[in-house]
Structure formats: C-alpha cells, structure tokens
C-alpha cells in the first residue's frame, strides 16, 4: 500500500511538472527562429523588426513547431530508459528465475510501449509540421519504428504461449534482443547522417533548457508512477487469483 501511495503522489507531481513545462514552453521559453522573413513595409507585429536598408524590414521566422520538443524528447527518453529497465529485469529473471522479475519486466515493457506510442504520435505531428511529410524512412525514425514493432512482437510472443515458465523465459530472451535496439536507435543520429535533429550537440539557451528539464523530470516520475500502479494492480490480481483458488479448494 505504501508503494501505491508513493506512486499516486509521484503521478500527481509528475503531471504537475509536465503541465508546468507545457506552459513554460509557451510563455517563458525563447521562440526558436528558423530563417528570416523580409517584408516591404513596417508591420504591427510582436516580432522584432530589423531594418534592412532599402529592402524594407526583416524578422526572424518563429519556429513554433519546435515547442513539441518539450514533450516529445522527454517522452522518448523515458521510453528508452524504461525499455532498458525491462531488459535489466529480464536478465535478472534469467539469472534468478524469480517470477516477480518476469512480472516487472513485462510491466516495464508495457509502460515503455505506451511511451513509445506517445513519442510516435508527437513525432509524426512534428515531422508533418517541420518537414512537410508524415513519415520519412530516416535512420532514427526507422530504428525507433522497428523498436516499437519488436515490443509489440514481445506481447504477441507471450500471448501465444500457454506454459507459464516457458512464457517467462522466452519473453525475457526476446526482451533482451529488443533492448539491443534501444542504444542503437539513441546513438544513430549521432553516427549516421540523419534529418532528425540532435539538440544537445548545439547547446541551448537556459530559457529553453529549463522547461525541458522540468518536463523530463516530470515525465520520468509519470513513467515510474504508471509502472508502479500497474505493478500494484498486478499484485492485487495475483492475490485475488490465489484467494479464488483457495475458496474453490
């Protein structure tokens, strides 16, 4: 019960932090600029106009679609971390054969899949706004998509096995194989030429960094809370099953 209470508190704090980050992204974070726009005459606009001699005025074109960064990246990083957590539990299961590790690995995989799907949705929205296409077969997107397919395959595999012990072992083995892709997907934009932005190579203004960190901390809390809530649900389910069996005798 104590764990459940911690999970609920973390969920609330995490939700608060991500919401704060959402507002910060729009109100305090500096608007990133993407090229400049030149206009013939002075306009009434919130952007800072710069006179360019005879050619009129220019202003930095605001890059509003960049705002999704404060949500998309924290969710994506949480998805990688939770997937690696799942693989760690899988390895520990294979070493100790304790059922609790298998349950933990499965629940972590579930949580990670939720985050992966959220990343996909925000990512697709962003590529449409920024690149003009819904999808591109580009190294990061592709490896991430493959990672999602493997995580779905993990559940297909589990659901098609009757024997509990075998289901756990096969699931753990495949979780390890799937998790090999997580660092590859994370590093690939830094190794291969890719359209996907690598933000932390170029550095960031502090007004942009702050909402990002708030969102990242919040998202990790939400991630842990979702995981812990599902775990306690799972434990309750197990107790109910045990009670039912005892009653039926």
């Amino acid at each position, binding site marked *: 019960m104590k764990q459940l209470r911690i999970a609920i508190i973390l969920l609330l704090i995490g939700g608060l932090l991500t919401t704060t980050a959402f507002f910060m992204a729009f109100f305090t974070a500096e608007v990133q600029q993407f090229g400049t726009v030149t206009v013939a005459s002075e306009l009434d606009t919130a952007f800072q106009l710069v006179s360019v001699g005879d050619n009129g005025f220019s202003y930095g074109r605001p890059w509003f679609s960049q705002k999704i960064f404060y949500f998309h990246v924290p969710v994506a990083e949480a998805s990688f971390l939770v997937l690696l957590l799942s693989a760690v539990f899988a390895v520990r299961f*294979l070493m100790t054969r304790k059922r609790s590790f298998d349950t933990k690995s499965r629940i972590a995989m579930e949580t990670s899949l939720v985050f992966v799907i959220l990343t996909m949705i925000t990512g697709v929205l962003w590529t449409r706004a920024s690149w003009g296409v819904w999808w591109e077969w580009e190294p990061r997107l*592709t*490896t991430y998509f*493959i990672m999602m*397919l*493997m995580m*779905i*395959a993990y559940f*297909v*595999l589990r659901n*098609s*096995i*009757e*024997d509990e*012990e*075998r289901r*756990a*072992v*096969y699931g*753990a*083995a*495949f979780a*390890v*194989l*799937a998790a*090999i892709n997580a660092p*590859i997907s994370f590093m690939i934009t830094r190794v291969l030429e890719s359209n996907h932005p690598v933000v932390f190579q170029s550095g960031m203004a502090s007004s942009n960094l702050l909402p990002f960190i708030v969102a990242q901390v919040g998202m990790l809390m939400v991630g842990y809370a979702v995981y812990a809530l599902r775990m306690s649900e799972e434990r309750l389910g197990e107790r109910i099953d045990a009670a039912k069996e005892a009653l039926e005798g």
Partner: protein
Amino acid sequence: MADEILRRTPPAERTKVPGLSLRQYKAILRKDIVMELRTKEMVTSMGLYSLLTMVVYQIALSQSGSAFDPRTIAGGLLWLAFIFTSMLGLNRSLVHEKDQGCLEALLLSPVDRPVIYFAKASGNLIFLLIVETLTIPVFALMFLQQGGYGGSWWMIPLVLFAGSVGIAGVGTLLATMSVNTSGKDFVLTVLMVPLMYPLLLAAVSATSAAVLGGDGSISQFWSGIAGVAGYDAIMVLAAYALYEFVIGA
C-alpha cells in the same frame, strides 16, 4: 524434465575428452544432413517456395514497362525471397526436431547447449546457402538479362554468406522459441522481420552495389558488408548467450 536430469549431474561426471564438443557438433550436424539427404524435404520445399516467389515478382513487375530496369531493385527482391524462404526452412527444421522428440533426446544427452545451438544453426545455414545458390541463377535469368552484372564475381557470394550467417544464427534461436508457441509460423514472422531489419538493409545495399557496379559501388559494398558483419557479431553472440535459457524452458 531433461534439463532437470542434466542439472543434477555434477559437471565432473560429464566426461571431459579433448575435442569432444567438436565431435558432438559434427554428430548433430551430420544427423541433420543425413535426414535431409533421406527426405530431401527442406531443400525441396524452400527451393519451390523461392521459385514461386520469383513468379510472384514477375506478376508484381509485369506492368512496369520496358523502360524499367529491375536491376535497381534486384538486391531488395533477392533478400525478400531469402528472408521468407528462410523462415519457412527454419520453422520446418525445428518442427521436425520437436514432433519426433529429437529435441528431448538431444537435451537428455550430455551435450553442452551452445554445441546444439551452433550445430542447428550451421545446418540451417547450409540449407539456406544451397537454396540461395539455386535461386540466384533463376533470378538472374528471369530479371537480369539486360544490363548484366556490374561488380566482381566474388561480391555476391560474400554478401550472401555474411547475410545468411545472421539469418541462420538469429533465426535458429527464434525458431526454437516459435515452435513451442500456438501460432508457430506467424510468431516466427512477427519476431523475425523486425529483428532482421538492420541486416536486410545492409545486405540489400551491398547486393545492389554488387549488381549495379559503377562509381562508388565498392565503398557502398564494403560499408554494407561492415553493417552485416557487425550485426552478425552482435546478434549471434546474443543468440548464443540466450539459447541455453530458451532451449531449457
């Protein structure tokens, strides 16, 4: 059950003879080859399947017109045929073992698990290579008559071998899992295609470079081969480490 008996046997009692693993490896591999020579089932079914794939390709390309050069997609078509053919073969090879109780007997015998893995994988690799060797001339005859072959003669065998090592290595592990599930072939497909993605991408790139030739094809070929080799190293190692757990479950 079998695992239990083996676990109870202290390691010291298992006879330690130098070169024993190699002899065991040869024995298991020989069994697979002898069985294949008697039934001719794997190579026939895989070869026929691959031939039928070529027929389907013909249908797919039938409306492409005379200006279209199939050489540009030859690498993709070839590896598509090989990946699906290999899944058929891998499934067969393990279903036999299971249905006839051979796997149980193998587990009962005092053979190290990695030896079983490498022997089964080598068997699958050999059959896959035979089918590939049969497919290539047919494919060349059907689709590559105009334009000819751009690279050196050894390029295609090299990429075929490197790619097949990965397919057989990972596929043997996945097929060992999937034969014990309720949806055998389906589960193998769902597990295998995402996991094979990096290998296929690199292999197709190398094969295309070999078929088309021209400027920069050598460097494209070698970077493809490097990708395939890296994948082989990582994944075969992972499969080797996980096989012991999987086959015991």
